[in-house]
């Protein structure tokens, strides 16, 4: 502030991670990473400057702060109007991910033995030729301080168990894969214990075996019954990023990014059918975006994004909210590491389940001609988030309300608006699950953040299904 800044904030982040993996009964080298550093962001003459360093010493703090201020001065020369920013109010707060067992306190030996036992379960099925099982554990200590006397200390935890099963198609010699549906969570080691991993392995090895004789999908339009494990990513990509306010304002650091949810369409755009209700939050227990405060010191909150199909809300942060009429900060700023500028990120996004106890089997039974698709696969989406294509892990043909045969190479393409307006049946609460990714990318330079997305199973009519191998 002595250098002329009108506002300053600093983040000190210590991140400790550990990766334990077993490949084909062989323990892979354990990966441990300890990372520490700080970032300083300042407002100078109405413009932002930022600098960061891994060297946490008084002299380096002084140097980096000066660097941030001098950068802000350069930026100010290119602004016609000052940055509109409302800092978080003075506070002293702590928040910690509620965990039962610190994942980094569990011995590596215990983890290795558990993973080896999982491998033995998988290799009981003779068709399994390879299996990789990986558990990634994270502890983050985030300390935020601002010139407005806002001090926030947070301790965040994440655990991500995942596995990949591989079999070889004897006819073609090609590997056939089934990746697990086990997702990362903001939990302690209890996440691994709560998941029924042995049951999941048994279920997926059976699917892998069936996949060996699956028929290639015939491209054409038809109904899709999407399992929660598949719909989560589609929700995140087609609605999640689309409702980030910085994109509606004309892009941020990723210069070509935009959104079909433009400012003039708020409260008027029929984004989905009347069944579609989408909420954003950073408070769902165990969900990946869950924390107490965002990286601008704002408390997190829950808000509607889509209500009965109507687009009604943006994800916002203090850095962008005041640029759009009627918006206010909703605690969605996130700096991936100490080296990153806080960026507006969509928080946990959840599509509400239908009120009735509709099961996946009910959705299938109500479908005359369609495909049931489960598991997350590859995806691609345009910069306006208006048109995407998505794959999956396993798919079955539905004929007259029954699953007939497994299909392979199934993908679907959709305009975001057509897709959500074609949602005709929602699964009930029992079909709803929360998933997410630790690696949601955005920006230039790119940042990767944890992001939760929850959805029930649901049916979508008249969707363009294609063959992912272009057959």
């Amino acid at each position, binding site marked *: 502030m002595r250098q002329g800044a009108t506002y300053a904030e600093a983040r000190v982040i210590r991140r400790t991670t550990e990766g334990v993996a077993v490949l084909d009964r*062989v*323990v*892979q*080298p*354990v*990966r*441990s*990473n*300890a*990372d520490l*550093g700080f970032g300083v962001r300042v407002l100078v003459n109405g413009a*932002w*400057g*930022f*600098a*960061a*360093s*891994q060297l946490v010493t008084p002299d380096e703090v002084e140097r*980096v702060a000066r*660097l941030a201020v*001098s*950068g*802000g001065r*350069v*930026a100010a*020369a*290119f602004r*016609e*109007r000052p940055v509109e920013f409302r800092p978080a109010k003075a506070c002293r707060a702590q928040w910690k991910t509620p965990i039962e067992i610190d994942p980094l306190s569990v011995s590596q030996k215990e983890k290795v033995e558990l993973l080896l036992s999982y491998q033995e379960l998988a290799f009981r099925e003779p068709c399994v030729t390879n299996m990789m099982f990986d558990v990634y554990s994270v502890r983050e200590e985030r300390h935020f301080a601002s010139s407005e006397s806002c001090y926030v200390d947070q301790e965040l935890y994440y655990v991500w168990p995942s596995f990949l099963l591989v079999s*070889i198609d004897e006819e073609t*010699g*090609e590997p*056939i*894969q089934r990746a697990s549906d086990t997702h990362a969570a903001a939990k302690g080691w209890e996440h691994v214990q709560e998941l029924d991993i042995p049951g999941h392995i048994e279920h997926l090895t059976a699917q892998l075996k069936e996949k060996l004789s699956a028929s290639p999908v015939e491209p054409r339009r038809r109904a899709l019954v999407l399992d929660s494990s598949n719909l989560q990513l589609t929700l995140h990509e087609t609605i999640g990023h689309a409702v980030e306010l910085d994109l509606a304002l*004309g*892009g*941020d*650091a990723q*210069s*070509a990014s*935009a959104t079909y949810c433009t400012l003039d369409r708020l409260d008027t755009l029929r984004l989905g059918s009347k069944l579609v209700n989408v909420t954003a939050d950073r408070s769902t227990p165990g969900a990946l975006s869950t924390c107490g405060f965002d990286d601008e010191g704002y408390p997190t909150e829950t808000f509607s994004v889509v209500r009965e199909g109507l687009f009604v809300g943006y994800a916002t942060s203090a850095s962008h909210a005041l640029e759009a009429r009627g918006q206010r900060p909703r605690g969605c700023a996130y700096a991936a590491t100490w*080296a990153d*500028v806080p960026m507006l990120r969509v928080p946990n996004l959840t599509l509400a389940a239908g009120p009735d106890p509709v099961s996946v089997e009910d959705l299938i039974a109500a479908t005359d001609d369609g495909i049931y698709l489960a598991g997350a696969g*590859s*995806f*691609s*989406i*345009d*910069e*306006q988030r*208006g*048109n995407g*294509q998505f*794959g999956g892990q396993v798919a079955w043909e539905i004929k007259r309300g029954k699953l007939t045969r497994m299909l392979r190479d199934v993908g679907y*393409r959709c*305009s975001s608006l057509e897709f959500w307006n074609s949602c005709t049946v929602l699964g009930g609460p029992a079909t709803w699950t929360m998933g997410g990714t630790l690696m949601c990318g955005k920006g230039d*330079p790119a940042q990767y953040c944890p992001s939760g997305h929850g959805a029930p199973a649901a049916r979508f009519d008249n969707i363009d299904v*294609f063959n*992912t191998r*272009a057959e």
Partner: protein
Amino acid sequence: MLLSENEAQEICRKLLGAVTGEDALVSLTGMRTSSTAFARNEVLRTAALHDLEVSVTVTLAGRRGHAVTNQADDESLRRTVATAERNASVGHAEGEVPPTLGPQDYRQSLSWFADAAEAGPDAHEEHVRRSIERCRHEDLLGAGTVETGESLHAVATLRGLFGYQRRSRARFSTTVRTRAGDAAGEEAAYGFSLADLDSRKVVEAAVECCRRSRGAMAVEPGLYTVVFAPVAAADVYGWIFTQLDGWSTEVGETCFSQPGGELPLGKQLLSEKLSIWTDPEDPHAPAAALDDEGLAARRIHWVENGVLRMLAYAPQKAVERGLAVVPAPTSFILSSSATTLDGLVAEVDRGILVSRTQYVQPTDDGHRYVVGGVTGIGTFLIEHGKVTRPLLNLRFTEDVQRGLSELEALGCAARTLPVAIDAQELCYFPSLRIPSFRVEECLAGV
């Protein structure tokens, strides 16, 4: 400041001195960058970053462990070595662990320039001003990033290897849009020196593309002859780089895989017009002098006139197979010609010019040579050898090997950062003319 060679060597010496195992590889990766981001004709922020990563891999009684820190004080270094050794103690003996390398003879390329290494926001001003002032004059909205900086990579082993390389980088990208959002242009320049950033040329190309993009129309899905500008060509066909792995080819995972796992080295698998190589001394896209294991880079021909000549083998797989290690490359150079984009277009009766793409990804994780994506800014219809009309964005699916087997012509090349490569190393990719390219659907945006 980044660590000097002597400072890096001293840290490596301390790390190796703390090792009790029979073998060890330590590496340092340092970075110093400065960036200026702008959008809507205003600078959003400047950012400066200094980071250092210290990585230790120890072999202890035939088992390996790994640990990383970003602190270089003596206590952190000792703790990191101890963590790596503790990690090794829980592992399995992996059969024959490949030994670390001894001294290497490195070929240093001309890829460090003080002007880019030391440039801060002040040095970015000229480029940002050029874009913003041009956009304001044309009543367009400009966005983009200027990024400069340097990196270091040092590797040392208990067997006496020490390698050190410092490289600089410079990047300027800009996107311009009309206020109505109905037309856009995009261009970028990459290099190692500020002299590589011809921002006047970049800005004029983006503005001209935007001007020509107004009034975009739809085309029917189907098969088209497509001319790709180098950046777009690299994002679609750069996925061929992920296929150049020997082990993955043996187990059936690449487009080069053969029944029975035989390696098709020496076979004509791509167009005879196409060669792909890596070269640490190439002036356009010099490969890093040393890889993560400290192995010295050399000129390697992966594909020669369409014939597959070499596949990469990581150390562990090479030991298992009794083969020499072939490092997985992080940068590539492709054959090209002096033919301009207009020259490639001139031979097309009816087709499409693609300048940029968006989100090109494999459509199936198991087959990373079939990709899907969307054309981006600068998609145009070609009629009777000329670019005639702007087009709306198009969704496509492409088998990368098919395209590179059937390609009609190679044109002039440019430095690019293909999406298929994570390493942020520059490649030198040509413009391409590809027949029978499948357009799946026409989208709403430009």
